[in-house]
């Protein structure tokens, strides 16, 4: 049976590499919905994927800032109408603005929570309310959600929430047979990581495609044998 996947934050980094692996390597994922904010990077990535993907693979895109509830709601309504059931969801979109506690603004904390925590919740809830039955949900957390890091209060707190929220989703969605996996990558060479650690040489740390390979495995037939409340991948 063919499957449809939805990946948020799909314009670059882990989201883009996950989309690429789904399109190129998966035996049964034939449609991938990409959510990302409008950008030249996103357009270029979609164009490249469309020209390189095997015949029969479908790419559907929506320009959406998942932190904007109204546009997220609208994008989900339109995608649900177009593709029907979303079988695999990868909640990857992330935001951070690392500043010390004394300098953290509540508005920025709220934005961090909106993108990192509320958006995955809203996507899952809205689709469930439409009768969507997920086979697999992958929530991307972070090792910073396991141990808080100095200077990263808002990001660490939001990712801790993702880890805990995933545990609840896992229990509540068991009645549908949905697998919920929380994945906590360590240092990965993404744009977000550059914001967190601008002085770091990205070639020395884990690459987005490494994390994407792990996500691809979750979505593959052997993925159901990998079972953990929070899987850590680090170099």
């Amino acid at each position, binding site marked *: 049976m063919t499957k449809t996947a939805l990946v948020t934050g799909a314009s670059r980094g882990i989201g883009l590499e996950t989309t690429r692996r789904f399109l190129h390597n998966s035996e049964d994922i034939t449609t991938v919905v990409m959510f990302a904010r409008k950008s030249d990077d996103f357009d270029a990535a979609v164009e490249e994927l469309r020209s390189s993907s095997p015949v029969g693979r479908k790419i559907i895109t929506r320009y959406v800032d998942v932190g904007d509830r109204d546009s997220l709601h609208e994008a989900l309504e339109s995608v649900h109408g177009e593709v029907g059931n979303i079988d695999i969801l990868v909640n990857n979109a992330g935001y951070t603005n690392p500043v010390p506690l004394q300098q953290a603004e509540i508005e920025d904390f709220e934005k961090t929570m909106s993108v990192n925590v509320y958006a995955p919740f809203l996507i899952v809830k809205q689709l*469930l*309310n439409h009768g969507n039955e997920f086979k697999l949900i992958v929530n991307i957390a972070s090792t910073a959600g396991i141990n808080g890091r100095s200077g990263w209060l808002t990001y660490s707190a939001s990712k801790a929430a993702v880890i805990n929220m995933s545990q609840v989703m896992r229990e509540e969605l068991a009645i549908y047979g949905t697998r919920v996996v929380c994945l906590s990558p360590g240092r990965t060479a993404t744009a977000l990581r550059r914001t967190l650690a601008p002085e770091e040489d990205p070639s020395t740390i884990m690459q987005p495609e490494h994390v994407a390979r792990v996500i691809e495995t979750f979505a593959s037939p052997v993925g159901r044998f990998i079972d953990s409340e929070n899987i850590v991948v680090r170099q």
Partner: protein
Amino acid sequence: MYSLILLNGGIGARIGANEPKQLLKLRGIPILVYSLVMANRVEKIDQIVLNYPPEWKEGVEEVLRDYAISTPVTLVEAGDSRHSSVAAMLPHCTNDDVIIHEAARPLVTKRNFEDLIASEHSNVSLMTPISFTVAPVDPETHEVTGSLERDQLRNVQLPQKFSKADLQDAHAKAEQDHKVYTEDATLVAVTGHSVHFIEGSDVNFKVTTPTDLRMAGFLLRPEEEDDD
């Protein structure tokens, strides 16, 4: 196709709750949801007739909406007893064959429904062997009055399926005789219609007491919690 009569009208007096026990939470989810989600997945059930305790219609409608139950649902206010509720729900069934289940058995599986539907007989109940001895007694004198053959007895479970005509006939006769039954397999059989049974499951028990609620929660835990 089948109409499912889903009994959902009881107030959880024995469970010590202030709300209907079907809206009580089991692992954080209203008990009613477990049966609804399973029934919603059974292709041959194309109608659910669901009753609700008086004043709890809104709560039940909210559950149906939030959990996106796509099978059409007909809501009927609960009667004074289980017997009268079934009698009141039957005329709302649009199919010639009906299945009866109760929300207080949240561990029912899609397979339970499908096994029932697959049976060649029209009137069938899930039942399990009895692993203990049942004694006939005189409740007034506290005297044991005889002995029952355990092999000849079964623990009656739900779901059950019936020909709607047979079930209606049985209820009409019971009303005529002013008799009230606690379940429908024996009612239909006593009326003279043939009723068969298939093997039920020991986990498909009725959640009646706080202990039952805890046991059901235990059985619904993710399996890895039992790992070494």
